[in-house]
């Protein structure tokens, strides 16, 4: 146990070495001409760096992350100099698609943080995203306006979260079980509604998509990445707001105190149930925004079970990020990067896309295994509170 601190210095050092290797192996005299080497080494460096970082080894850990990131980019760049396409992929494209993949995860993760900080486990993020994805499409088709679509998504997510809240707060059901039921309910409900309301599916013209920054505000066209959906930009705002609300306002203090020691919070006059209801509903609204990005923000359509486990990954990001908005966001970026890599890799390297698809999950597994040692959840999470 005493050696833990030193251990993670070693972990970070290994991470730095991996990051450097990612770049150097692509250069002469090694000149390994395959993209998998820098990517595997670089993501390994990122994972190790993050693990070390969250264990309190801030300087070396941060360094490892930086080196890992730059090493990967550099390693890929070095091999792709003679290939024009790779260069194009790596400059703006990869970053933008990383953001696109991270956005739904980040919304859901922020929601998860609110819920879990108040002491309610929320496995149901997945279902709340899914119902948000469906009702975003429904609202946008029904009204012909994406604003209404986003609003109905948030409303539906909030309502589904309310169900979870009633069951886990007032009825004191097992929160994991209730969350799982939320997921299943959303899966059945959205599938049922989709095939009964749109038996022929939805067409492109019907669904009003969320515009990109440059489409919404012409004069902002010069901003880099202004072709990204407004919801991506809103996501940054949500992450910052989540941090501010949770850690810089009295409301945040209440949420956290309810999650750490509800009895004490109750004693000083904080409504434990009220705060928990509000937090869980907030989490549903945010998760549904993530779902809305998936449907009307990105693909422009709804498909059954389109969230495909993203809610669970967001949950992993929450734990990975130690229930803090900033770190959770970093974790979602990491997963987003893993997903985004799959696209150019499939094109450029001779690697099965299925193997690459496991990357974010392997990364999560490593991260959770490496990080959890000191990743301590809110003390009262998962325990129903009985008012006396």
């Amino acid at each position, binding site marked *: 146990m005493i050696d833990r601190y030193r251990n993670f210095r070693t972990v970070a050092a290994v991470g730095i070495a991996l990051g450097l290797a990612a770049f150097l192996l692509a250069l002469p005299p090694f000149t390994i001409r395959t993209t998998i080497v820098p990517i595997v080494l670089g993501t390994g460096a990122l994972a190790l760096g993050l693990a070390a970082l969250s264990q309190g080894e801030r300087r070396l850990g941060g360094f490892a992350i930086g080196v890992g990131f730059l090493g990967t980019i550099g390693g890929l760049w070095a091999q792709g100099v003679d290939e024009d396409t790779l260069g194009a992929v790596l400059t703006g494209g990869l970053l933008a698609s990383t953001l696109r993949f991270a956005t739904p995860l980040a919304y859901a993760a922020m929601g998860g943080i609110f819920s879990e900080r108040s002491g309610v486990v929320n*496995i149901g993020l997945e279902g709340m995203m899914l119902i948000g994805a469906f009702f975003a499409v429904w609202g946008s088709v029904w009204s012909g306006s994406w604003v209404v679509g986003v609003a109905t998504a948030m409303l539906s997510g909030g309502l589904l979260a309310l*169900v979870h809240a009633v*069951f886990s707060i007032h*009825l*004191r*059901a*097992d929160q*994991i*079980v*209730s969350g*799982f*039921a*939320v*997921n*299943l*309910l*959303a*899966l*059945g*409900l959205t*599938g*049922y509604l989709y*095939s*009964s309301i749109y038996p022929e599916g939805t067409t492109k013209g019907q669904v009003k998509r969320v515009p990109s920054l440059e489409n919404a505000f012409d004069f902002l066209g010069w901003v880099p990445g202004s072709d990204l959906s407004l919801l991506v930009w809103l996501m940054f705002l949500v992450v910052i707001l989540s941090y501010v609300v949770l850690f810089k306002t009295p409301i945040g203090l209440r949420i956290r105190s309810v999650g*750490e*020691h*509800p*009895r*004490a919070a109750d004693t000083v006059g904080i409504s434990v149930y009220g705060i928990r209801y509000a937090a869980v509903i907030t989490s549903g609204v945010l998760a549904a925004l993530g779902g809305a990005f998936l449907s009307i923000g990105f693909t422009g359509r709804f498909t059954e079970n389109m969230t495909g*486990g993203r809610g*669970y990954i967001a*949950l*992993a990001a929450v*734990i990975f990020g130690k229930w803090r908005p900033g770190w959770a966001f970093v974790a979602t970026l990491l997963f987003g990067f893993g997903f985004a890599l799959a696209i150019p890799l499939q094109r450029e390297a001779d690697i*099965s896309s*299925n*193997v690459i*698809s*496991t990357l974010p*999950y*392997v990364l*999560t*597994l490593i991260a*959770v*295994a*490496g990080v*959890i*040692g000191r990743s301590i959840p809110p*003390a*009262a999470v998962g*325990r*129903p*509170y*009985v008012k006396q």
Partner: protein
Amino acid sequence: MSVTPPAQVPEAEEAYSLRTGAQELATGFLVPLAATLLAFLIGGLVVLLTGHNPITAYRAIFEGAGFNWPYEWLTGQDTRASGRDLQQTLRTATPLILSALAVAFSFRCGLFNIGGQGQYWVGFIFALLVGTHLEGLSRPLHVLLCVAAGILGGAFWGGIAGFLRATVGAHEVITTIMLNWIAIYGGKWLFELDGPLQGAAPSLPRSEIIFDSATLWIIWSPYLHAGFLIALLALVVYYVVLNRTTLGFEVRAVGFNAEAARYGGINVRKSYFLALAISGAFAGLAGTVDLLGVKYAVDQSDFDTNFVAFTAIAVALLGRNKAVGILLAGLLFAALSTGTSSRNLDPDVFEPALATDLATMIQALVIFFVGAELLIVYLWRGTRRYARLGRPPAEEPAPL
């Protein structure tokens, strides 16, 4: 669930009898039954709201599941159609029951194993490897080897999560979900075009077919295979291991109160590892019987469509992690699934596409209501205040 009676004060005695009464009610079969009925009721409302007749819809599902077979058989009617439907239901129930045991076993140890699907696939693939090799073995031996391989594969995959939980404390909900996706994409990679385990047909992303000597016996022609008997046997094994062995006692003790179990000298970490590994073994067995009795090979697309172990979570919850409960719940969920399949459900009565989602919804509602036993007890006792009937408050955090 033992409750020590408090001092014999009349008032306390009344409160005590009230509470034990509620607990008996809750732990018995009434809550699951009421939960199921309530779920069907709400599901019926949804059917009604979307403009269908719930009674005809449910009746069609009931007959589609082959549950009218005993009646037809007793009255001497033509039972061929209903017999086939019933066989399909039992065949569908087999992996459901086995995967539900995978959830239930770790539940009894206080762990939530969502990784049944990954364990199912790893067991499936291990059994496939044995089933497509070792030509010329006698049938019982080959089947036995396949089953052993499948159990081993599932236990291996579950054991990873157990190992991580036991050593670094990684939360099993996260790790098992990640292992699910790794198994799913890994499986898709193995059987993709030019994948390492792709079968002889060069243009098809599917595996070889297992040898005839590795297939399970058909016990009720044409559909029902001996895997159903294996599932029944597994239920007995589950009961015996959990209730009649030291291992089972330790697992239950850890699940009931890990801290107290540790204080009592039980190796909690070992129990965590074993519980998840044994859970994985059950799920691996589920994959194995599916392979040996139904599929005989695997198609790449199966990895995208087969989520039997996720449904099995609901089965375990509805069955309250008890052997008999899992059997009944497995049959119910299998009936919902075969009864709503496009082959068995008359599209004039109710569109199968809708019915499948209706089945999912009913399953979700069942879990909700089983989870919230307080709600059922409250509805049951109408006039009583439900707050008094709750479990003893377990929310007290660590001492100040």
